[in-house]
């Protein structure tokens, strides 16, 4: 008997085996595709993560809140326009509680998680050194927006390719302040000086630079008294008594926040600001202006102050628009920290656009010597530059003026020349061996 021929499978359609095989392959393919393609799509829409570290604890909370709000304002503005490189900005801030170990731990966690595209260091000066070490150690792109200690960027031994600073350096502030003070004192013959500064790195450094540069610009100046109240000192009366007893013409102070308020409150009982010409680097911040107005009923006129975030410093539309937009958004005036941290965000934005990617190495390279236009930039161009050799912002507005009793609380504003600032800075760096001739 002949075997039946194999059934031909030429009939139309699939055999059961082929059907099952094809189905299985299709299912696997579909499953793989559905697994892969959303990830590809998700990667395209992955947000850009900005991780901030600052203090939201106790009296330092003003730093955390004003810096966080500046970053939020930048992120909201950018997200409303479609984000950066088509990606939304997500912002998260962590509380360092003004503890070095905590800020360092948070910085390490951000770097180790590999989820943060940028670390914003809005911590105190001491903490910033620790965060910078993490930045160097773990190659985490970091911008410091608050600390002003000169050594953070000036010392080449601690240079980190991934660390940048958008806050002023004390040496720049003091060069500008000393030049301003020298010019005024020469006209008025105010030679006898007192220094009152908080007894920690910030205060000590400020006085060191101010005295140095004052003697360069005004050699006749004599420093006849120095007092060092501790940070957050509640009682300034003994210090005021000492200064007034020394019969000085002028007094430089780098007390800030509540300390400058307390100094003026207690000094006001003695008519301190009438008898001694006060030069204050930090009185111009609205975190000090508002409580001083509350204490005195009006802002005391005639004090010489460095200006921080102010709608007329610089006197440009870009700056005043930003100032009032911030005020409208958050119902308080931006602080100097707000201004500096917002500038950090603008630098990052421009660098990412230039690099075309958020890859930290590429952004880091794009940041070096980057020039941006920002509200804080010196007119007329309003440009700031992230100097390549030390990753320090320069060319921001350094201005001083005299206080008046109504908004914007300052007049006769003089913007200091960066040629003068750079010259004295370079001389000091060369003396330290931190800048080659």
């Amino acid at each position, binding site marked *: 008997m002949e075997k039946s021929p194999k059934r031909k499978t030429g009939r139309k359609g699939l055999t059961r085996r082929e059907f099952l095989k094809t189905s299985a392959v299709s299912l696997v393919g579909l499953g793989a595709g559905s697994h892969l393609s959303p990830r590809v799509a998700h990667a395209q829409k992955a947000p850009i993560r900005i991780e901030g570290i600052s203090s939201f*604890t*106790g*009296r330092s*909370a*003003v730093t955390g*809140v004003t810096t966080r709000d500046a970053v939020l304002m930048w992120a909201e503005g950018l997200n409303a326009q479609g984000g950066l490189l088509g990606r939304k900005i997500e912002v998260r801030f962590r509380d360092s509680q003004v503890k070095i170990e905590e800020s360092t731990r948070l910085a390490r966690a951000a770097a180790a998680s590999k989820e943060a595209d940028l670390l914003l260091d809005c911590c105190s000066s001491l903490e910033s050194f620790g965060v910078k070490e993490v930045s160097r150690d773990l190659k985490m792109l970091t911008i410091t927006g608050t600390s002003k200690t000169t050594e953070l960027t000036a010392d080449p031994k601690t240079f980190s390719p991934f660390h940048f600073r958008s806050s002023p350096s004390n040496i720049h502030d003091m060069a500008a302040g000393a030049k301003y003070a020298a010019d005024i004192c020469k006209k008025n013959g105010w030679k006898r000086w007192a220094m009152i500064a908080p*007894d920690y790195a910030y205060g000590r450094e400020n006085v060191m630079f101010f005295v140095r540069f004052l003697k360069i610009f005004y050699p006749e100046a004599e420093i006849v*008294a*120095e*007092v*060092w109240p*501790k940070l*957050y*000192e*509640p*009682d300034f*009366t*003994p*210090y005021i*008594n*000492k200064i*007034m*007893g*020394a019969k000085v013409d002028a007094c430089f102070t780098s007390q800030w*926040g*509540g*300390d400058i*308020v*307390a100094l003026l*409150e*207690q000094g*006001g*009982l*003695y*008519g301190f600001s009438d008898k001694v010409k006060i030069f204050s680097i930090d009185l111009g911040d609205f*975190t*000090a202006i*508002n*409580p*001083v107005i*509350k*204490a*005195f*009923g009006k802002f005391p006129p005639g004090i010489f102050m460095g200006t921080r975030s102010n709608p007329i410093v610089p006197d440009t539309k870009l700056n005043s628009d930003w100032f009032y937009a911030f005020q409208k958004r958050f119902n*308080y005036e931006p602080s100097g920290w707000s201004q500096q941290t917002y500038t950090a965000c603008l630098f990052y934005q421009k660098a990412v656009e230039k690099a075309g990617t958020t890859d930290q190495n590429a952004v880091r390279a794009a940041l070096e010597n980057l020039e941006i236009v920002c509200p804080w930039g010196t007119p007329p161009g309003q440009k700031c530059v992230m100097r390549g050799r030390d990753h320090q912002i320069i060319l921001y507005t350094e201005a001083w003026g005299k206080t008046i009793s109504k908004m914007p609380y300052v007049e006769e504003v003089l913007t200091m020349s960066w040629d003068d600032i750079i010259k004295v800075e370079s001389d000091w760096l060369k003396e330290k061996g931190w800048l080659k001739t």
Partner: protein
Amino acid sequence: MDLASLFNCLASPGCILGQVIGALIIAMVLFLVASGLSLILGVLGVMNFAHGCLYMLGAYYTYTVVAHFGNFGLALLLAPIGVGITGVILERFFIKRVYGLPDLYQLLLTYAFILVLDDMAKLIWGIFDLSVPVPGWFRRPPIDIMGTLVPFYYLFIMLAGAALVLGIWFFLAKTKFGKIINAAATDPEMLMCVGMNVPLVYTSVFALGSVLAGLGGVIASPLRSIVPEMGNSIIIESFIIVVIGGMGNIIGTFLVALLFGLMRSFGILGFPFFELAFIYILMAVVLIIRPSGLFGRATV
């Protein structure tokens, strides 16, 4: 060191007066806070680390009353009462549970109060520094005494402070309730045996201590920035004064507060970089030589 500055001042009656007045101002605020702490520690045996927060609340309550009613005198009355009520709540619901327990429990509980109260202050009054203006009655040119300017508000603090020192001493030493408080500090069990409501006495003492701390905050508010954690700057100094002065001894507390003020005032002239060290050195010496304090009862 700047010994020339110190000796020049000591050679000038006007300068001495100026520094002494500065010392008295520091001393008065410290005395008010430390005396309340001394009572609480001496009578109740509670290490109230949150005592500085009560001083902070005194300042914040003052700000609120002045902001709403524009009257510092009203704040002088209401703010300490408000802090007293706050103290009663803390004592009735929390502190009484750690009486007689090891110090660590009291430390943990009162430290928790610091964290909670500081954050509550931030939530209620915000993060920005606040100010209370010097009351209008005191806004006049300072008086010139021997070439030294003395602000009117400082005169008020000195006079009011002197009255309070005498008043508190009189209350504790000469009144019936003061004697009950002393008895509660010495032997609470015996006091209970004679029918006194000792828990009520304890609550009253805590309330009184809180009122004193709040009063310190009221007086300091026109001179200092009002911020969360402002109590932290005063609590350590208050403990030092209580330790050196002797627990429960009001006159001792006042004298040591005055000594503290003088050390700060004159120390700043001659030793501007480390004048704070002197009071800590004194504390260490007293603890070694006389652990009960300069004016406290010697322990057996």
